[in-house]
Each structure stands twice: as structure tokens, then as C-alpha cells.
């Protein structure tokens, strides 16, 4: 049976987002929390793989207790089980500490075939977890998938990035980082909602793991946020003068100056 795990994070909705002027961090109080938009593509992929190949799908998140709501959303979409990793000791974990906790989590789970992540979170945008976690678990990471199939424990897929495409086949377990707009995440069905609230959510805390000290996100995170600042990009207008040909030449020059190199240089008129 295929064991699928989807990693999700609860993030503040970008709608009405505000930054604390003193600390430079996001104001999370009173802001609506949603499932990180990129993770919805992961959930949809997980659900459709389960529909196609059978198996069981679990949503996992590490976060504060209120992240339970995000897991209820996952359950409503059709996820079978969910796990919330939460502890004050994990607060302020950076991506490395988060990776270590997730690594321990999967060591404990032991039996996993496919782990799915989105490309990045909308509240910190590092996109580091999928890369770090595949290293930590020593399993292949596959990104930029276009089509895929699974046969006898072998995952075959077509990848497409930039101007290259690849066909690869790899043995499970693997970690998939699904790109944005890869699929169309399903809407929550009303009948899923009641069922979601009847299910148990599994909780892991600091003491669930054998080697708690090194997982201490509060004190062991090597990342220090030194400063955050608001970047204001001012738009500027530049009116290009001259006749048609001169305008085109000037425009090409400006584009080149800005590093836009792949320009069409065929006959202009």
C-alpha cells in the first residue's frame, strides 16, 4: 500500500498582511490563517495519487496549536490522517531545525513511500525544506514534474525545466517538490467537513522524540534574523524618443542593460 505524506504549513493570509514596525516580523494576531497556497498543489497531487494507485495519505505540519485548523482543512479535502508537531520548544525553529524535527518524525514513521512538499511558504519564502529534508533522509528529491506514473515501487516521471526535459525512473521512497499551478487543487466538499471533525488528529511534542536536546528550535537554530526591512521599489517612467527605428534600437539597448538577453533580432519591419 502506497504511503503518501504531504507536508503543509499554516500561514497568515496575504490579504491585509502587516509588519510590526519595531521587530520587523509579521503581525500574526487577528490575521486569518490559511494553508500555504503552494501546499495545496501538494495536497491535490497526494490525493490524486491515492485515487489512482490506492494507499493512505497523511498530512503533517509543524506549527502552533492553532495549526490544527489547517489539518482539519486537509482532512476535509480527503486526507486520511494528520499529524501536528507542536511544542513551545519548537517555536522559532529555522528551516534547519524544522528539517531535523521532520527527519526524526519520518524515522519514527519508518514506512513512507512518497513525501510531497510545495515549493515554498508565503510567509518566509525560503523554499529550503524539500532540499534539506531529502538530504537528511537520504532519499531522492524530484522537482519540476510534468507527468508521472508508479509501477512496482518504481516512480517514473517526465521533468521539464527551463529548456531541458528529462525522463527519469527512481525507486521509492522519494520526496516530490511540486511546482505551483501543477494541478487544480480541489475544493472542500461539505460532506468532507463533518467527517474531518470526527477524526482524531495525532499530536507529537518535544518529548515524543528520543533525542530532544538537538531538536530544540528555540535555542539551537543557527539562523539569526538580523534585520528585516521593507523594500520599496519605485516604478519609473522613461519615454523613448525618436522615430520608430530609433525607438526600437534604444529599447533593445535598455533591455540588454537590464540583462534581458534573449531578444528577437529578426527583421524588425
Amino acid at each position, binding site marked *: 500500500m502506497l504511503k503518501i505524506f504531504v507536508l503543509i504549513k499554516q500561514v497568515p493570509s496575504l490579504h491585509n498582511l502587516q509588519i510590526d514596525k519595531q521587530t520587523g516580523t509579521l503581525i500574526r494576531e487577528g490575521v486569518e490563517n490559511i494553508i500555504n497556497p503552494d501546499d495545496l498543489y501538494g495536497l491535490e497531487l497526494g490525493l490524486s495519487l491515492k485515487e489512482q494507485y490506492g494507499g493512505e495519505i497523511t498530512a503533517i505540519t509543524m506549527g502552533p496549536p492553532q495549526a490544527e485548523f489547517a489539518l482539519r482543512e486537509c482532512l476535509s479535502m480527503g486526507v486520511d490522517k494528520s499529524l501536528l508537531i507542536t511544542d513551545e520548544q519548537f517555536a522559532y525553529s529555522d528551516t534547519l531545525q524544522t528539517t531535523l524535527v521532520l527527519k526524526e518524525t519520518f524515522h519514527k514513521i519508518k514506512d513512507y513511500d512518497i513525501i510531497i512538499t510545495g515549493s515554498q511558504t508565503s510567509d518566509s519564502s525560503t523554499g529550503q525544506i524539500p532540499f534539506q529534508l531529502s538530504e537528511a533522509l537520504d532519499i531522492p528529491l524530484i522537482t519540476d514534474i510534468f507527468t508521472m506514473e508508479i509501477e512496482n515501487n518504481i516512480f517514473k516521471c517526465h521533468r521539464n525545466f527551463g529548456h531541458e526535459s528529462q525522463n527519469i525512473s527512481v525507486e521509492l521512497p522519494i520526496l516530490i517538490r511540486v511546482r505551483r499551478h501543477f494541478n487544480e487543487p480541489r*475544493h472542500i*466538499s*461539505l*460532506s468532507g*467537513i*463533518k467527517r474531518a*471533525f470526527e477524526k482524531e488528529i495525532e499530536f507529537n511534542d518535544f518529548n515524543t522524540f528520543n533525542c530532544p536536546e538537538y531538536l530544540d528550535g528555540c535555542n539551537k537554530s543557527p539562523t539569526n534574523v538580523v534585520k528585516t526591512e521593507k523594500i520599496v521599489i519605485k516604478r519609473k517612467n522613461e519615454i523613448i524618443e525618436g522615430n520608430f527605428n530609433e525607438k526600437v534600437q534604444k529599447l533593445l539597448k535598455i533591455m540588454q542593460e537590464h540583462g534581458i538577453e534573449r531578444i528577437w533580432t529578426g527583421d524588425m519591419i
Partner: protein
Amino acid sequence: MNFELTEQQKLVRRSVRKFAEEVLAPVAPTFDREAKYNGYIVKELSKVNLFGIQLPEKYGGADLDSISYAITIEEISRICASTGLMLSVHNSVGAYPIYNWGTEEQKERYLPDIATGKKISGFSWTEPNAGSDAQGIECIMVQKGNDFVLNGSKIFVTNGAIGSVILIGTRYKTNDGQNGIATIILEKDMEGYEIGQPEDKMGVRGNITTSLYFNNIRVPKENILGSLNDGFRIAMQTLDVGRIGIAAQALGIAQAAYEHSVEYSKGRIQFKRPISQFQGISFKLAEMSTKIDAARLLIYRAAFMKDTKKRFSKESAMCKYYASKIARQVTQEAIQIHGGYGYMKDLPLERYYRDAKVTEIYEGTSEIMKLIIAQQILRGNL
């Protein structure tokens, strides 16, 4: 007492809102303009189980509580009042009476298809000569052997064009000379069942309203809902439930008009400042917000009383009367706040106004709501 929605109810609101904004928003203006209903939407609504909101899982429903139901209709109507109407009628006055008064055999026969939207349901009582005076209906079915033969016609049938299971009220006459009013279940493909032309309406134009004609329809006893002489009581209790949905529909329309008004008044600059900074405008917003809140609370209370098995005729009449009235007022003021732009069809404000008006008419006019409320008061239900 607790004024917070449960986590489950919050998730209902969030999910339905997202669905409505993504799936219905792009098509709502077209439904209104072309007075057409696009069949593919039924499939989309079915995918998220909007046709069986309160039916038990056994029949394929979502088995939600009545507050969740009200939230659902509000959120759908906030984006598309025509779809809100279809779903309110289907779920509350179509599916509910079959579930509540139907025999197990009737439930097995109709509810699974109703819950998936394979069969859209409706409730048709009004006739050319019987509107507010619901006892004045003239459809008549006369017993012939074991069955009845039905003749007559109905008007203003919501879901009339797409509905395939329609509950109707009719007079009856039995062989042994009994007569009265029955509620019966009709199916679209019964011989002698004819659907009239679509009405050209002021609002909720995306819901196709038609007449229905019944020519010698053979109605087997299995199609009678509850006991034969219980039809009128069933209809009145069904409308108590239906009015929560219509009130929620009105609320959704008002909410949409209000949100647009807040946004617009903050952005529209006149006399060198946003018009929201003029007290004449901001007071309108304050009034809108207060009215909408009051309506919402009245609706939730009626829904709560239904779920806790209390009598709620008065409360449901109150929420329907009040929500429809403020929906008309709020949508009208919203046009005022938008000035000339509000009057143009480019913006949805004039649609909201047209859609809101009918909530003061169907499932009992505001005058009839006050009649019901007053009757209850004078009977001692202060």
C-alpha cells in the same frame, strides 16, 4: 451563551466562500444578463455536495447543522443570488419535507439523487388565484381506483425548468367523499406534466421560473407525502424551514453590497478626500453593518431553535421579514454610495438591488411574515 461559530462552522464558511469566489463569481453576471442557467454549474455544485447540505450521510448528504446551512446559502448568495435561490429551495423546501415526512421507501427513492443534484427539487404551491392565501389553491386530484388523477396548474415555480422532483399542494377528493389539501411528489417525466415558458424577471434571473401544467396526471398513493389530509400543515412547517434559507439569501446579497460600498467609499475621492470621510457616507456604512449583523443574528437564532427542536415559526418569520427588508435597504444605499457608477450594469450593485427585492415576496410576503409574527404574539408567544 456563545456568539462564536464552531470551528466546523468556520470551515464551512471559508470553504463555501472560496468555492463561490472561484467558481460562481465568473459566471454570476452572465446568468443574470442572459437569464440562462448553465448546466455545468450543477456538476460543480454537486462536487462539493451543495445539494444535500443537511441530508444524512446515508443518503449521500453532508449532514450539517442548520447554522452551517444558513452560512452556506449566505456565502453562495453573496456571489450569485440565483444559485443561492436554487440551493435554498432545493435543500430546504424540496429535500427537507421528503426527509421529514417521507416514508422510508420515498426517501430511498428520491433522496440519493437529490443529494447529488442528479435530480433538482422544488416546491410549488402558488397558483394564479392563490398566492398569500395558500388555502385557496384550485389544483384538484380525484381518486380513480387506487390512484388519483390530477388536474390544474401552478405559477412562479423556482427550479421549474430544471427541477425533476417537485412537491406540490393540491385539493383532493376520495371515493368515499373525503376532501382536503394534500402535498404530493411529482416527477418531471410523469405523463401529463408540462413545463411553461420561462418568466422574464426583474431579479434572480439566473434561476429559471416557470409555470407548471398538470393534465390528467396519474398520481399513485406512493407519491403522497405524509397522510393525505396533512398537506397544508406540511406546507406551513416546510416554509418555516425554507424561510431561514431565503433570509440567508437576502443576507448574502446585503453583505456583498455592503462590502463593495466599504471598498468603494475608501477609494473614491471627491472634494480631495475619500467619500468615506464624509459623515453622510460613513453613517450609511454604520447603518448597513448594524442591520446586517442584526439580520445574521436573527437567522442564526432561528436555525439554532430548529436544531434544538424548539418551535421556531415566529423566529423564522422574523428573520425572513427583517433580512429581506434590510437587504432591500442596504442594496439601495449601496447604489447611492456608488453614485452614477452604481447605476451602471458594469458594476454588480444594480443586480444586487434587483435580486434583493424578491426576498420580500417569495416564501411569504413581508406582510404575511408580520401576520405570522403577530398571530404568535397575540396567541401569547410574546
